[in-house]
Structure formats: C-alpha cells, structure tokens
C-alpha cells in the first residue's frame, strides 16, 4: 500500500521558531502522537518507536530514522523512517519537510511531502482508510507541532508572545503518549457527515 501525501499547515509562530522544532528529530518526534526517539546511533541515525492503538489491538512499530538531507538556509529536512511491528506490519516513510514564511505576520507554513509504504496487516485491513487516517494523524501532528513551536517562540521572544495576547497564546500541550485511534475514527466520522452535508448545495 503506497500513499503519497502533500500537506501544508499554517503554524502561528515565526519561521525561526518553527525551524527549531523541525531541525531537532527528538523534538519533532515528540510531536507525533505515540512516537518517541529512544537512541541516537550517530549524527544522522536514530532509533525509535511508535505505538498505535486501534480498539483492543495495539501495534508497536520499532524502527530507524535516517536524516538524508538537512538545509539550515532553506529550513528543509529530508528523512527516511522504516519500522516493523511484531504483529506482522511494516511501514516506511520518505519525508521532506520545510518551513516557509507566510504572507501573514506572525505565521509560517509547514510543508510536508511524503511517500508512505505500508505492508502487512495494516495494509490488508486498513488499505481503504489509509489516506483519511493519515490526514487525521498528520492533523494531530501539526497541532502538536504548533504548540511546540509556540513554546519555543515564547522562550525566545517572551515580550512579543505576551503582547500578542490570548489568541496566540500557546495551547496547553496535550499529553498524548500514543496515537489514539478513537479520536481518529471520531474525526473520520465527523468528516464523513460534514462532507455529506457540504455536498448538498
């Protein structure tokens, strides 16, 4: 099962603060619900795991991340992640992510382009839901990313952050230690029905 994902999220911080999150794999991984970097093998190789819970079934993907390219100037990073689960699923993700300035002050854009291949049970049973589930996962990721970036922003620019007021104040970081499939399913159901309503013009 192969899915190509092109995503763009608006992040309510400066490009510099957002880059601080993107450039550090450990921080970046912590934005991914259920993911954690457990070991740095060398300057470009890391080990980690992601835990996904779908109802009573828990899948724990263990794997490696390799940084393939890293560019401070254009604020872009490319990485390759590969992992497998004991239950018979495996996945790989070739991801290029970068930060672009936004035309709106105090915001920037997080661009992601990835090629995800999933094999095994997840591909057998979840094939048709892959794109929508990925959307939900990445949506949660972007939320967490924004929160983290805002925290960095507040640390580096305490005055500005204060002046911006309550609207841009960092949301409290949600303690998500695993990818919660219930909220994903709920999101899908909401999306499905709003789609139905939306199509009736």
């Amino acid at each position, binding site marked *: *099962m*192969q899915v190509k994902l092109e995503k763009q999220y608006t992040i309510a911080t400066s490009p510099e603060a957002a880059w601080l999150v993107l450039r550090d794999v450990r921080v970046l991984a912590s934005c991914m619900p259920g993911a954690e970097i457990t070991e740095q093998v060398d300057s470009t190789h890391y080990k980690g795991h992601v835990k996904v819970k779908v109802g009573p079934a828990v899948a724990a993907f263990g794997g490696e991340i390799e940084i393939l390219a890293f560019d401070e100037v254009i604020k872009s990073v490319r990485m390759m992640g590969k992992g*497998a689960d*004991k*239950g*018979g*699923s*495996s996945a790989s993700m070739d991801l290029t992510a970068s930060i672009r300035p936004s035309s709106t002050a105090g915001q920037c854009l997080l661009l992601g382009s990835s090629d995800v*291949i*999933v*094999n*095994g*049970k997840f*591909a*057998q*049973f979840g*094939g*048709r839901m892959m794109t929508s589930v990925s959307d939900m996962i990445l949506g949660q990721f972007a939320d967490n990313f924004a929160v983290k970036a805002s925290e960095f922003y507040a640390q580096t620019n305490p005055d500005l952050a204060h002046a911006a007021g309550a609207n841009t104040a960092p949301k409290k970081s949600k303690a998500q230690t695993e990818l919660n499939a219930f909220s994903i399913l709920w999101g899908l159901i909401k999306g499905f029905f709003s789609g139905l309503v939306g199509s009736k013009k």
Partner: protein
Amino acid sequence: MNAPLKDRQAALQGMGESRLRKEDARFIQGKGNYVDDIKMPGMLFMDIVRAPVAHARIKKINKEAALAIPGVHAVLTADDLKPLKLHWMPTLAGDVQAVLADEKVHFQMQEVAIVIADDRYIAADAVEAVVVEYDELPAVIDPFKALEQDAPILREDLAGKTEGAHGKRYHHNHIFTWDSGDKEKADAAFSAAQVTVEQKMFYQRVHPCPLETCGCVASFDPIRGELTTYITSQAPHVVRTVVSMLSGIPESKVRIISPDIGGGFGNKVGIYPGYVCAIVASIVLGRPVKWIEDRIENLSSTAFARDYHMTGELAATNEGKITGLRVNVIADHGAFDSCADPTKFPAGMFHIVSGSYDIPAAYCRVDGVYTNKAPGGVAYRCSFRVTEAVYLIERMVDVLAQKLNIDKAEIRRKNFIRKEQFPYTSAFGFEYDSGDYHTALDKVLNAVDYKGLRKEQAATRANPNSPTLMGIGLVSFTEVVGAGPSKICDILGVGMFDSCEIRVHPTGSAIARMGTITQGQGHQTTYAQIIATELGLPSEVIQVEEGDTSTAPYGLGTYGSRSTPVAGAAIALASRKIHAKAKKIAAHLLEVSENDLEWEIDRFKLKGDDSKFKTMKDIAWAAYHQPPAGMEPGLEAVHYYDPPNFTYPFGIYLCVVDIDKATGETKVRRFYALDDCGTRINPMIIDGQIHGGLTEGYAVAMGQQLTFDAQGNIQGNTLMDYFLPTAVETPKWETDFTVTPSPHHPLGAKGVAESPHVGSIPTFTSAVVDAFAHLGVTHMNMPHNAYRVWQQLQASGVTS
C-alpha cells in the same frame, strides 16, 4: 402401473423421487462431525507464522522467545524440514511448492514457520513471539509485468530451467504454454471472414470461501508406525498416496479420513503446507496435532480460482454464422503452480471454449505466469477452467450479436450444434455426447415472454424519466464434466476412475462404500436411491459411507461434477454385478432357468406368473444361507468405473436486471434457469444444488474479488470485504429442466451441481452489459458491484 406395483416402487424411494436428505437430521441438530470436532487424547495445536510481505529474503528467524513460552513444544522452519527433504513438496500441476518459505518469501501470508503448543491460544501467542527479519524485494503483482524482460526473477529455485512440466519456458516467470485446436485453420477463417470482433476481458481472482475452512488432525503412532489423519479433503485417497510418497510411510499404514465437510467448491482439493506441517509435527512429537485455518488464512493462502486475462475473437458471416474462434489467455497462477487439474491439462478443460456452437475452426492458447500471489487456480464449483471458457464464449457471442445488430437469442439459435449432429466432435476434439439446445432455448424464451421483455426494454430506453436501465442477459452453456477417461485424465499418474463397493447383508440391508466424498451434495441420499432402484432394496436400509481410505475403495474424490457421472456409474455397475448373481440364486430357489425370470421393481418373478417370485430380501438371506452348489456365498461387488467419455450437461439461463441510474445498484428482477443434466436422480436435491450454484454465481459476478495493492498486500481477505451473499442479497431463482440422457452413462445421468455456477456468471454480465448496450458498451469486467456500475454510468453519460 397398477396400484400395488406403484406402492412397491414408492416404498423403495429410488431414482426420480424427491427423497429428503438423510444428512440433514444431524446437520440441523448440530450433530455433524467436522475435522474441528475431532478431539484426541494428548492432542497439540499448530499455528502458522506467515509472511507480512509478498516478496522478500528471509535474513533470520529467531525462535527463542517463542520457545520460552510455557506450553510451546516446537517451532519449526524450512531449515528443520530440510533434513527430512520436506521443506518443498510436489504440486498436482508438476511444479514444487515451499512447505515453509525456504530462504525466500514468494507471497504475502506464505507459511514461514510453525508453532506447536498445548492449546490454540498459546500457539497464537507463540506465533507473535517468533521474530523474522526480512529483506524486502520488489513484488510482481501484474502477470503482464512479470513477463517483461527485466522483471525480477520470482522462482530462483527454477533459475536456468527452460523446460517445465508442460514444455518450454520462454521467460523466467513463465510456467507453461498450452494450446489446442488448429491455429492455421483458425487464422484462415479470420482472413476470409466477412466480419470479426475482438474483446479483452479479465476474469478476476476469486476464492471459493467454503463455510468450513481447511484443517486437519494428524496422529502418528510411533509404536505401530501408523499415521491417521482427519482432513478437510475432497480427495482423501489422493492425499493418502501423496502423504505416503512424501513421508515414506507405506500407503497401507496411512489412513486418511474426510469426516463431514462444510463445503469444498474446489478449495479442498489441493494438499496444503498446513497439512504437511501438522503431519510432520505429529511424527516428530509422537502426539496428535490439530491445525485449523482461520478465515483470513483461508482467503489469503489456500487455493484461489480464476485470475484469467482473456482475449477472445470471433470470425463470422454478415448473417451471424460463426466461422472461427481464437482465444488468448494470460493465466496468473501465483507463486507456485499448484493448479488442481488432470495432470496433462495445465489449463484444465478450457478448450470447451467453443461452447454450444458449431464452430468449424478454433484455436486457443493459455500462458501460465508466476506472480507474487498465493498459489491455486482451482475449479471453484466447476469442472477445471470450464467457468472461464463458458464466460469467454458467451461474452463473445453477445459482442458479435451487438456488432451485427442481431438479437442474442437469434444468434445463438443460428449457431447451436443441432440435435441431429450429436455425438458431435468440436474443433478442439471433445466428443459432445448429447444435447438439444433449440428445444431448451425455446422453452425458456416462452416461459419468460422474451419478446415482451424486449418491448418493455425498448420503452424504458425511450423514456428519459426512467430511474433505471433495464438489461436482459441470456446464456446457453455447455459444460464438460465427469473427469474422466483415464487414457487422457490422471492425477499424478493415477487414472481418474471412481469406485463403489456394495455389500448386501443377510437380512436385506446394504452398505455402499465409495471413492468419492460428499461436501454437501447429499451423496448419502442420492447414492442410496440408485442402489434402491438397481437392487430393489428400500433406500432407507442402504448405508452410504465415504471418506475413510481404510474402508472405501480407491477413488479420485468429489470435484468437477464427477460424482454422478463417474461414481454414480460405478454404483450402477456394482449393483448390476450383484443383480446378476441374485438372478442365479433366484433361479436356484425357484428351481427354474434364469431365462424364465424377469425383474420387477424389487423381485425376480417367473415370467407371466405373479405368484412365483423371490424378493431381493429373500435372495440376500439365501446368498448367506444356502447358495447354489458351486457358488461363492455372500452378495457383494466392487466396481471401478473408467468413463469412456466426459458428460456434457447444458442449460439456458435468462436474467433481467434493473440498474439504478443514480446509485449503480443492480437489482436482479428475474432469473430463469433451465438445466439439462440428463437423467434426474433426486429432483429436490437437483433444485437445491441449482439454487446453491446460482447463489455462488451471483456472488462471483456481483461482488467477489481478491485484489492486491502494488506491494502485493492482499486487500479484502475478511468477510467484511469478501462478498458472501446471504438470504438478504440473494435473488429469487426460477428453475426448469429438460432431460437429454447421456448415451454412454449407465444411468444416462450427466452431473449438475456446477452447471448453475458456470452458467449464471456470464448471464449476470450479459444482463448488466445489455443495460448499457444501446450506449455502445460491449463488455464490463466483473464484479458488477454498485461502485463499478456507477463508474460505467458516469462514463456513459447516464444521469438520473
């Protein structure tokens, strides 16, 4: 017939009676005895570690964690089977198949290792604890891509082998090329043709999906050196021979028992790695081992059916008389060629593809190809590849009719083999035994008011406000069943005869033992009826026993509608041996010459004198009590029947569908099935078989498909996705019949259970395509589910 004779006849419940099924009493009370019901002292359970990817090298298998789980007895891999030379096994098609993946994985869900444990739950936990490291390789899913020059080599074990079991291999992923007919003559017919049509079609990969999955209980007795295996097999004797050949245990010490079987439909013909592993585990551990597949394993790894990419061509005159047929097929056989066909026919009986039509020149060619998918290619409720053949010719005749703007009933009438042409030898060399296609067609057209339907369709098409499209499908199929004459049909060298042993007991009851095995067909009911009529004993006192190789005579099993054509004939002929001996005894008892006797329902009587007679019951007692001097006591016989020819059942099916223009939902308004299976043994069972076959045909045409993504992940291998129709979805069936007996069969019977599957599938396609015919559509690939039909509605610009 006078009243007393009628009463005596009725008391037998013989041939032609709708006798109630003897099997049902135990099935409807939950008292069946299936493989999973077998429990043996000290029995262990096996589960299988399967490959998560379709194509990969195995780097390492780590068993330690699994072995450390309390209750786990063994974890076996290909390396463990290697010293026994059991890591690979021969297939029925002349190829070899990995029992457990040997260094390389060839399809997703392939067997990689087995775990034996105290119970099913521990075994499942241990499967998860076995850690296998894979090096993934690019998977080849499309058979056309598999034949490209730079395609990855799938079967490294065959590297450099240019000669396969069925001749030359021209590419590393090519299995065989098989052809039939006269190519030059066919080409000439096309060069000279006034009109030609060509149509590509894909007969999707489907799965028979019997309610009971595959499994076995293997029990090796190390003291006696005997192996007993309860197994879900449609061919237990073949299993015994193969197990003996693989294990080296003498065949006399191998006992294979097929108990009650919950549906087979071809899925239970093959010999699967799971069976072999359970047997090996039992031999190694000296304890009984049970293995039962779950549904996902059944749909993903045990034998699929079809997967034929077909191109058909017809040459014809402007008036619609067919002059030539050409067919080309790329057959996706998956990773190992384990098709279950008569050994000499790698594409089965596909050359029945000229159908019910008198076609003077024909040629077909099938190329088998390896891909990274599960092996199989079984006859799913059909005689070997007949479903594919019938689908192709019936589609092609429709395509030609459309091109020439001739009605599809008319073009069939014009091309049918005529009644007086039988026995008819087809361009592919089959000798059709008997048929009367014109009579059957007229009967169906009149029954449904075909002209009226066409009128209604024209009105629907003319009405822009109609919410539906109306389609009429028509098919006139001929099957070839009852494999088969052993001069051309064998499995691993064993001729495809079948057998029956009948013992009449002293008190006039009898037991018959058979080489076939019922899986729902109702053999225990119908076989007894044949004996009842032949021997004049009530069918109630005739026991029919099948499936135990230690008691039954050798037979090739039940598949390809062969039970009645082959075993049914063996019953009749075994009965007639007994009948002949009984006549001698009767003559002795009545002190007359045999020539003075005549047979009447249940007795021999003196010609013209109703008062002097001996019933078969009297004769049975005498056979054990006071047989004539010089005659062996007892009343029993064995007959091995080697059929002189196949039988050729046929039918005319008509279907009316209404397709919702907005949703693409297809509603089957009417389905009329006329079958001619020759002599009818039990009309009620025939009707039941036809209902079942039509329902499975509906399943294939309207929803069943095993699909794969580009990486070889099987999609939809659960009943959440795989369409198994229930009473909710199933349309109403109307059945009808004509009777054209087979001239070479002792009873005139031809076999029926598979006709409705073979015949109905193209009927549904014919109906769905017919709904779009006025929009220029000539073919739509199955399955005709709402989404796919909706796509065609969009493509054809149909708006609601």
